């Protein structure tokens, strides 16, 4: 009983809206990102990490007309810390958000094109809020890492998953929040989880397929791999670690890296050694709290600079190593700079890792009295290392000391910026100290592996945060802006003689790059702890920043909580341009 009742023929002209034309991102575009102004295809506005846009339409003279174009809500009940840096390609913004989400937005209209929400298992263990720092673009794909330590490749047009690879076992404490980096078709990643006794590593995968090319654990004694085979051991087993402590030695590579095409080196920072109690691991504990220069083709470590040997204060050395040409004594030195958790601003020769200068960028660094430029080592003040609990009373606690900076660092994750025009670095710093003491601890999979207790205290009544312009030639602070709450957002410099950064109080602020004069501010409605960007589209210079308070400060900040308790949650990205442009 078959009856043909209807035979529909509708012209298949189903116009699915105006589809955005996303052209494939090439390796050449990625390498040229610092100079290009019409797109942002890397974290750091170029692999050098300078966070400098050459654009000059917005300047101290014109900035009074800088107004919002649109604001986009990340929605849901997931209003947690928003630490992302947006990417921009062919009129589309790719921005990540809390809880491992990514959004593609039409920049002209602020319309959402797609949204991807990673499905996270219940057992994730992020130490410091459920944040994400940004994405990477290459080919037709956009990539980011998720809180359950997965690397996800999405189709940039649709947001659909192309592939997904495991960076580490989330049940052992591995996590991932940093933006990946693409170097010549390979996607470079690190891992988070230093508080859980994981082993930090740097890995390269084929960006097209996600297949592993090389893996480099950063703790000595562990074996690296290349094309599926073991290659070399990292360092020399037990050279700077006692017994089997290296097996859970930490050194999380949780803040991403930079890349130098001139020397063909990747620079990755490594975190604190695990556990925090340094008396359990006498020795330098290589390669924790270091900057590593790594060959992107093989994963071999070419040089290292360790900023806090045998760290006992959680002074992760993960801070970004920003590449620049140091003009000194009539010469141009291929240099790099790093403002470390430990309070020192380092300038290194990036061809060999030699320490050129170490200058404090915070008012107090009581754990060490400067650095020896010959040996590259700190002059540690032994009295300001927390006492060994093995030598003290029945309560199991070692003697407590007050140290500055606090473990959240003279500078934490938030990336500084460099301006080739002023030849200055702009460092988002914090002035705080801590009481810290050590306790006994043994490793247990998936449990916090600290062996320390602590409370953070602000050093001054009137401010904690300070944006400081540092001269890398002299190590001197040229100007500073003081902020009541701790600074936790990235910095941007522009060709218009401006420096942008956000504050937990909700402001995106702009400063005259030469004088430090505050020339503009706008309250976004929640704390700004993301990294601002700038690009050009249809004749206008745009500025964008994510807004949404959170991150490590409200979770770990101790007495600092007083300074931030009235800041409300949010979750959005704001876009600005000059009125009438």
């Amino acid at each position, binding site marked *: 009983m078959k009856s043909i*009742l*209807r*035979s529909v023929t509708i012209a298949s002209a189903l116009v699915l809206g105006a589809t955005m034309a996303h052209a494939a991102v090439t390796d050449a575009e990625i390498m040229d990102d610092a100079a290009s102004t019409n797109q942002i295809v890397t974290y750091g506005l170029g692999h050098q990490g300078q966070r400098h846009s050459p654009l000059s339409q917005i300047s101290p003279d014109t900035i009074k007309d800088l107004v919002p174009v649109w604001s986009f809500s990340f929605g849901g009940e997931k209003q947690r810390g928003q630490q992302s840096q947006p990417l921009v390609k062919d009129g589309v913004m790719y921005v990540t958000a809390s809880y491992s989400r990514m959004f593609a937005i039409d920049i002209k209209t602020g319309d959402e094109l*797609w949204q991807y929400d990673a499905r996270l298992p219940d057992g994730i263990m992020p130490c410091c809020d459920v944040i994400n720092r940004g994405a990477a673009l290459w080919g037709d794909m956009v990539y980011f890492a998720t809180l359950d330590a997965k690397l996800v490749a999405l189709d940039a047009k649709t947001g659909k*998953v192309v592939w997904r690879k495991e960076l580490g076992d989330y049940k052992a404490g591995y996590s991932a929040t940093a933006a990946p980096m693409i170097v010549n078709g390979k996607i470079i990643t690190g891992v988070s989880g230093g508080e859980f006794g994981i082993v930090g590593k740097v890995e390269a995968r084929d960006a097209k397929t996600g297949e592993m090319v090389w893996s480099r654990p950063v703790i000595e004694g562990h074996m690296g791999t290349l094309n599926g085979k073991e290659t070399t051991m990292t360092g020399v087993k037990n050279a700077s670690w006692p017994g089997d402590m290296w097996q859970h030695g930490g050194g999380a590579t949780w803040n991403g890296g930079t890349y130098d095409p001139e020397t063909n080196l990747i620079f990755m920072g490594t975190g604190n050694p695990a556990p925090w109690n340094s008396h359990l691991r006498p020795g330098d504990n290589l390669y924790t709290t270091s900057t590593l220069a790594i060959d992107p083709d093989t994963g071999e470590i070419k040089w290292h600079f360790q900023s806090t040997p045998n760290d006992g204060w959680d002074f992760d050395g993960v801070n970004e190593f920003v590449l620049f040409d140091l003009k000194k004594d009539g010469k141009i030195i291929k240099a790099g700079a790093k403002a470390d958790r430990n309070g020192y601003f380092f300038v290194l020769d990036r061809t060999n890792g030699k320490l050129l200068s170490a200058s404090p960028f915070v008012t107090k660094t009581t754990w060490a009295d400067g650095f020896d430029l010959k040996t590259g080592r700190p002059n540690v003040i032994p009295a300001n290392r927390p006492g060994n609990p093995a030598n003290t009373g029945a309560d199991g606690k070692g003697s407590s000391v007050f140290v500055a900076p606090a473990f959240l660092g003279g500078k934490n994750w938030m990336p500084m910026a460099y301006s080739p025009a002023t030849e200055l670095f702009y460092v988002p710093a914090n002035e705080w100290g801590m009481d810290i003491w050590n306790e006994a601890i043994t490793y247990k999979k998936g449990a916090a592996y600290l062996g320390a207790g602590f409370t953070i205290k602000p050093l001054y009544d009137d401010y904690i945060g300070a944006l400081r312009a540092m001269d890398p030639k002299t190590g001197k602070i040229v100007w500073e802006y003081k902020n009541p709450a701790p600074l936790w957002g990235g910095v941007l410099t522009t060709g218009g003689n401006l420096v942008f950064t956000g504050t937990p109080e909700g402001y995106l602020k702009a400063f005259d790059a030469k004088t430090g004069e505050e020339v503009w501010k706008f309250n976004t409605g929640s704390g700004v702890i993301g990294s601002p960007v700038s690009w050009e589209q249809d004749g206008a210079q745009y500025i964008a920043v994510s807004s949404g308070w959170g991150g490590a400060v409200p979770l770990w900040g101790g007495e600092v909580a007083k300074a931030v308790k009235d800041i409300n949650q949010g979750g959005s990205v704001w876009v600005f341009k000059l009125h009438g442009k």
Partner: protein
Amino acid sequence: MRRVAWILVVLLAALPARAQTVDPADPLGSVMWTTVRDAVFPGAAMVFDDHVQVFSPPVVEDTMNVPVSVLVNGLPDVEEIVLLVDHNPIFKALAFFPVQAAPAFETVIKVQEATPIRAAARTSDGVWHVGGLRVDAAGGGCTVASVAASGGDWDRLNEVSGTAWRRPDGGQRLRFQVVHPMDTGLVDGIPPFFIERLSVATPEGQELARLELFEPVSENPVFTIDLRGHAGSVVIGGADTDANQIAARIGMASTLFGLLEASR
């Protein structure tokens, strides 16, 4: 889901002459049918056809687990069968490509309210043959959280269990289950997360049948299909929306239960 809704809005906008009324030919008299039809197979020829049969209990007990059985009898060269639920916020539950299997399957789906459930079989001439039935149900199958979403066992995600039984006609019946929350994305705070594709192949890699899945398929979905011209163990492959891989091998049963099942 958001994407689905958006596409639908665009579709509606692109079809100015969309019929607003019930198709008088629809044996189930569904107010949603013309919308479902135009969204799922726009421009294609379709007929209501009793050769396509859908079986399901007329009154749904559990809207998150509605057993559905589809049988296409007497139509040659069935290349694809889609399962449609008119009154679900997401109409399309799955597409089954028999390849070397019989044009029939059983599975378990979610329904949002009382609704027609239909199967549409595409024959090699491109015509869709549609049959179905109406089930009565209380509300909510697509908009409540999966059991897994409220603290499931992630260690078992994408775990496959199943058995194959030899049948008198020389083929075999295959029944398997995959552990997966199959979240629709319609529950606040729980993103869409579901198995997108499944394949059945010989251990040598020859494809025997294939499935494309969508949000309305139930949590920990179960599938029953009859393979033709293959006896022996099979390999199940697939992936979910987060590209988590599914890979398992299912062997033959030799139990009394197996014999009973095969003669059913």
